[in-house]
């Protein structure tokens, strides 16, 4: 249970992870593994610990006990600087509200992490333009993200995450603030581009129609991973 698809190596794994906030336990021995190239939906009711699991896998939270492994190496024992570097170079993030800088343009937002990664300015903006174009936003690069619709802003967030060329993408309720049709379009783009680029994805959602875009689901209940729906996508 909670094992990656047969025939593919594990890229990220939580082993018996516990995490509490004050007296409140969020994870109580959670275990989950995701194979290279797999898209796994982490599901569960509100407060079940699914977002905490994502944050532990991404090295944003450190577990109280247990281990997190990325690409064959312990992640949770690395320094804050090492984990930050990993998040800037190997991980991509898409959150419910995009977390874009509203005063900056769409192109600035996509280019920003590339500049932080020390890409040259010209190359960063060229890549930003290419990714915005792929996400159907070729004509929106100069617009401030605060002026974009929810669906457009979320596509900018997807472009920003993918432009970095991450090995692993974390998406936390990526369509949570969108209407059904817009959410569907974002999910279609997000998953098709991830598959095309062979990016592994951990997708946290409470929405079963969003989870249906994944290869496999794991269920989190009361801080424990309780069920695994197996892989069906071929």
């Amino acid at each position, binding site marked *: 249970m909670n094992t990656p698809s047969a025939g593919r190596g594990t890229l990220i794994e939580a082993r018996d992870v516990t995490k509490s906030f004050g007296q409140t336990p969020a994870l109580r021995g959670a275990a989950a593994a995701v194979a290279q190239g797999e898209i796994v939906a982490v599901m569960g009711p509100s407060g079940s610990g699914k977002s905490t699991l994502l944050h532990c896998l991404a090295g944003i939270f450190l577990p109280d006990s247990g281990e997190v492994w990325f690409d064959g190496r312990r992640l949770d024992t690395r320094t804050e600087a090492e984990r930050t570097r990993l998040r800037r170079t190997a991980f991509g993030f898409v959150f419910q509200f995009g977390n874009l800088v509203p005063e900056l343009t769409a192109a600035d937002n996509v280019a920003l992490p590339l500049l932080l990664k020390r890409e040259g300015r010209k190359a960063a903006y060229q890549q930003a333009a290419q990714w915005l174009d792929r996400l159907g936003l070729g004509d929106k690069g100069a617009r401030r993200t605060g002026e974009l619709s929810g669906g457009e802003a979320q596509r900018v967030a997807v472009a920003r995450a993918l432009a970095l060329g991450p090995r692993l993408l974390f998406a936390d309720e990526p369509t949570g603030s969108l209407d059904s049709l817009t959410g569907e379009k974002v999910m*279609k783009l997000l998953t098709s581009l991830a598959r095309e680029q062979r990016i592994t994805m951990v997708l946290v959602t409470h929405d*079963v129609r969003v989870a249906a875009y994944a290869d496999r689901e794991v269920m989190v209940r009361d801080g424990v991973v309780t069920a695994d729906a197996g892989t069906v996508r071929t």
Partner: protein
Amino acid sequence: MTLTLLGLLEREPSYGYDLKRDYDTHFARGKPLSFGQVYTTLARLARDGKAVAGPPEHGDGPERKRYWITEAGAAEVDAWLSRPAEPEPHLQPVLFAKVTLALMLGRPADSYLDAQRVAHLKRMRELTQLKDAGSLTDTLLADYGLFHLEADLRWIDLTAARLGELKEEAVRGR
């Protein structure tokens, strides 16, 4: 199926063969009608005054008859299309019976619900893939299935959360 065939006749008078082809193309979704079903239905519609058969026609192949919809038939199609379908959960009786029986027999209802959940999610993934690859018609049909499965899943999740109370009630009721 009967009213769908009658509706196709309203579109244009048809031979049984053409009617079956049209039905299979637009409505069968992998479950084509048999010729027997089509001709039995046409005979019943003719008997009930909702369709009429023309005289036998002789061509290169076997003898055949063209069917027309009558005014009574057209009125029936109109009434059917105007009336909302009875909202009924397709699986609720089965899911409910299994959970209740499992609790009554002291069997693990949570395992059954988990298994049902996995089956539902698997079907939802298949329908989502169909949407990715298919036409707009496929998308509309897949959406219909997805929303129904989602409703079942909500019921499954809520029932799973209530299993403790339900077990107590089942034990008290013994």
